[in-house]
């Protein structure tokens, strides 16, 4: 049971404020914001998502720079409240198409309308975009999407390729298109976040893929959908299907450690045919989350070399090699490397002919930052940095610098090899052929190479 819900902007302004039970004082938003902003004097640590001030529990999630907050005096389930806050953000996004400060401010009456149906007297009522439609009457005021950088998981597809209609995923589930009718289409996104730690000798210490299958349906009449995954999919550490003799021969089945599913997913034919069936509700939702620690081929190899060049100088060479097919291109790559505290200057040298690359030495946190617009599969890139120190290093440079970390996005690539084989829409009419978009993307969660 929650007492209040509010949304604050980055500066701490109230955008939406709803008090459901009148048990928590009115100034709670201010108390909350001050606490979050000054969690520790040094500003080093950020506030945890849940904390208690004078008997009031504050929960918050950050969504596109906004703070979604709930308060209560009751000892509730923290998961429930945090899931709820996240869900409210989702529902609002479904309605507004784009969720940001501007769209919230323009549509706050609609948001209040939603909030009244989502929660009554602190208890959750309806959080399904689909069901809410019958109770919500305000029309969203759609803000110009082209002008804004889109946020959320959908945005990662946009840089990727022209194949994707970029604006489609930012349209509201209720707004009608200029043409009158809504386009019949469905998006299935397989988003994987990979975490890898390489030892200094390049050996993989830990690796994990956290994947999710997201769906966003704009299909009318709620037809049933069947999503078929890899035939050789197995679940559980010992989930190697016994009949699967191929897995021993090296072709390699896809073995997930574990997964979970959306409420609406039926698993009747999952064990036998690896097929999920569901009637997708309106709006964006997660069909399935999965986790895999099975070995996989890392998309990038990082090589770092540090050479001392005299007492106050050293040279760092970072090599990044893309180990995926040349038909695939990674984008927005950033390579970060903390340098020794006594580094005073760094000068950079790229390989000849390099384009779309930026290098920077961040004085404040003594960090080297190397940005690359894109990396084509199979290619290798090198950065040389000459460092100048303000004091002698005593041969401790490797201990005091690193690890090298990397962030990137690779569209149409997934490390786990989990695939949507087909997407079947059960609707009788022969002419009915809605657009189906199945998209893959891989992102770095924590991609670290020790030196």
């Amino acid at each position, binding site marked *: 049971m929650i007492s209040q819900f509010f949304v604050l902007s980055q500066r701490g302004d109230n955008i939406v404020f709803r008090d459901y039970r009148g048990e928590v004082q009115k100034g709670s938003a*201010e108390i909350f914001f001050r606490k979050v902003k000054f969690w520790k004097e040094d500003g080093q640590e950020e506030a945890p998502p849940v904390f208690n001030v004078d008997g009031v*529990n504050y929960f918050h999630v950050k969504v596109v720079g906004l703070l979604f907050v709930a308060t209560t005096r009751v000892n509730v389930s923290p998961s429930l409240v*945090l*899931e709820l806050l996240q869900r409210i953000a989702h529902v609002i996004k479904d309605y507004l198409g784009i969720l940001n400060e501007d769209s919230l401010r323009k549509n706050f009456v609609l948001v209040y309308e939603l909030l009244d149906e989502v929660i009554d007297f602190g208890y959750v009522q309806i959080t399904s975009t689909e069901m809410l439609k019958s109770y919500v009457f305000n029309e969203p005021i759609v803000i110009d999407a082209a002008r804004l950088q889109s946020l959320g998981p959908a945005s990662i597809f946009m840089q990727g390729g022209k194949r994707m209609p970029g604006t489609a995923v930012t349209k509201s589930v209720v707004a009608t298109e200029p043409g009158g009718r809504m386009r019949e289409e469905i998006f299935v996104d397989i988003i994987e976040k990979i975490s890898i730690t390489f030892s200094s000798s390049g050996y993989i210490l*830990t690796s994990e893929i956290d994947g999710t299958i997201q769906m966003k349906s704009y299909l009318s009449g709620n037809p049933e959908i069947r999503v078929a995954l890899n035939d050789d999919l197995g679940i559980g550490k010992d989930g190697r299907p016994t009949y699967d003799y191929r897995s021993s021969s090296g072709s390699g089945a896809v073995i997930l450690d574990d997964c979970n599913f959306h409420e609406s997913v039926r698993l009747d034919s999952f064990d036998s045919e690896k097929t999920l069936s569901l009637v997708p509700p309106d709006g964006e939702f997660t069909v399935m989350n999965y986790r895999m620690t099975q070995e996989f081929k890392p998309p990038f190899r990082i090589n770092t070399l540090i050479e001392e060049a005299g007492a106050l100088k050293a040279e760092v060479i970072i090599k990044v090699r893309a180990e995926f097919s040349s038909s695939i291109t990674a984008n927005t790559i950033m390579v970060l490397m903390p340098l020794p505290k006594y580094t005073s200057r760094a000068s950079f040298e790229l390989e000849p002919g390099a384009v779309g690359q930026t290098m920077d030495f961040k004085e404040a946190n003594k960090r080297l930052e190397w940005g690359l617009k894109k990396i084509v599969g199979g290619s290798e890139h090198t950065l040389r940095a000459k460092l100048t120190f303000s004091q002698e290093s005593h041969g401790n440079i490797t201990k005091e610098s690193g690890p090298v970390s990397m962030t990137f996005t690779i569209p149409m690539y997934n490390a786990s090899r989990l695939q949507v084989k087909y997407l079947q829409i059960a609707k009788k009419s022969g002419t009915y052929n809605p657009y189906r978009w199945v998209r893959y993307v891989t992102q770095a969660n924590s991609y670290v190479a020790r030196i």
Partner: protein
Amino acid sequence: MAPPAQSQRSPSPSQPSGKGEVSDLKSQLRQLAGSRAPGIDDSKRELFKKVISYMTVGIDVSSLFGEMVMCSATSDIVLKKMCYLYVGNYAKVNPDLALLTINFLQRDCKDEDPMIRGLALRSLCSLRVANLVEYLVGPLGSGLKDNNNYVRTVAVMGVLKLYHISASTCVDADFPAMLKHSMLNDSDAQVVANCLSALQEIWSSEASSSEEASREREALLSKPVVYYFLNRIKEFSEWAQCLVLELVGKYVPSETSEIFDIMNLLEDRLQHANGAVVLATIKVFLQLTLSMTDVHQQVYERIKAPLLTLVSSGSPEQSYAVLSHLHLLVMRAPFIFSSDYKHFYCQYNEPSYVKKLKLEMLTAVANESNTYEIVTELCEYAANVDIPIARESIRAVGKIALQQYDVNAIVDRLLQFLEMEKDYVTAEALVLVKDLLRKYPQWSQDCIAVVGNISSKNIQEPKAKAALIWMLGEYSQDMHDAPYILESLIENWEDEHSAEVRLHLLTAVMKCFFKRPPETQKALGAALAAGLADFHQDVHDRALFYYRLLQYNVSVAQRVVDPPKQAVSVFADTQSSEIKDRIFDEFNSLSVVYQKPSYMFTDKEHRGPFEFSDELGHLSIGAESTASSQMLSELAISSVTGHASQSSLAIDDLLGLGLPVAPAPAPSPPLLKLNSKAVLDPGTFQQKWRQLPISLSQEYSVSPRGVAALTAPQALLRHMQGHSIHCIASGGQSPNYKFFFFAQKAEESSTFLVECIINTSSAKAQIKIKADDQSASEAFSTLFQSALSEFGLP
């Protein structure tokens, strides 16, 4: 339209100050109120939006109340909704004006559109005005019977709102009984779920004053009700499922087969993408299997994978809530997670609060087979840019070393830390080396060699400095420079700001003096002189004490200050197992995230709808440790709140006022004989304890022998049993132990119940006696005291 910019606390020049704009709005609203021009609703909408936007920002627009109400005579549902929102916000502060709205709300409650009926009913109940409650009863009654489920869900919450405005009106109208009927019969799952929420709130708050409500509250946990909910669980929304699961978690099945039926039924809930559903399910599984050790362990194995998946999917906030629960389970049963240690490795971009939990988990799961890898990983973090985490990592290495696995390799690592030449790394490592030496004195040679090379000038942190000084004193025999380093530290006495360091300095120089008198004598003199002149009371007192001790007899002084030491085997845990069990019982609540039981951070009325077990919720036999200590902790609360007089007595005694704390021997108590084979089941004990008043409350002294013998609660149990006083539950750790005893008269079935708290450091036992036959409690107390006084006799 003015955007609802900025907040009320920092009005910028551009922000509407309120007054002018509000009166503008007022006149505009007036103009529109009577108009029936086409398109008027659109203009009204714009105005209403403005009003609501001011309201959000915190500008007081309550003066528009009348105009808003006038304008809301409309069929436009969007307008209506905005008006309802406005009215709900301001009715409470304007009760007179609120009366204006009653009419049109009541009319809307009878609208033919169920949507409008529902909305109006919700607004009507949200007015929160006490003198309007009479208008609520009628619409609520028909709302509960409405043929539309939306109206019914709203009506159920409306009843709860009414209860909070006026409990008596709600109860007198017999609404709780109607809710109960709906809960068990309505076809709509959300109506049913709302009934459950509402009834939990209502009956929990009524239970203290009404026997009937208390019975009803317990009936929610009866088998038919719980099974009714379980059978319908898939009809409920994911949030309502959490509610049902929470209820099931409190249900105590009568047979083992039920437990398995319930778990099989709920098995697929563990695959739910909503973490709240999964955690609520896990709680059910854990609670149901508490007394079945094997199955309980299987449950841990089963929930591991879903928990790990939830931790790595979803937003960082959601993952943190789940991680906190995983942390709790790892700390309870580290061995089950020892092969999963890689999941607890920190990622560089995780927030500190996540890393801290992970470091603790890594420390807990370390065992013979994984220690090497874990320590290697932790050492990587020691060079982390995040200094607090680097420190925690070093501490974690130390804790693992103290757990005794592969100490050899770890000591080497720690010594390497000392050589890293980073202040905070050295500081943390010094403290650890000190603790390590207290446990493994055999490593002193290796450590001393490295510690000796550290210049005390480079150590600034008090804790680290104190650790270094301790080592200098303790191992002055082996550290060549010890007396001279101490001497130079004493020379800078004035500049040493930390009293802790100065205290350690005094002790260290004493120890050094006993081992190397000629070299240290001068430093000792200087230290004592400086200590005597010290403004800090403790430092002064310790210096004076040492001085007099030395004056009296040097060899006695050595025996006092520097006795041969035994290696420390276990360092005291910071949190008692009682508290940990209590937190475990509150699984899937904030208690887990805060790592505190709920009574520490929230007041009683807000502990959650399911806080049924405030007194002696569950109690089981003394042999079952988790349940019994939970009972202890719960009792502890009731005794703190209920019997303040007891504690004031203890304080009086502490102040040494010489109150007769031990009772004068009763004149001539009738001889009391106890039944040596008395039996009492925990349920009866619990019930009696709740019902009977305290007939005697006393404090005894415990003999030093008794204190010495009380190394564990079990020792006393056996002893008391010899005196026909039986233990039903016990718990605690040195110096605080708590026991519940019972005894029965030999001839009749008259029972005595005893709560006994023994503090070994003050050598006091506080007892509370409750008895069926109160007149015999004096005699029983005497008997109890004499039994206790014999404890520890050879």
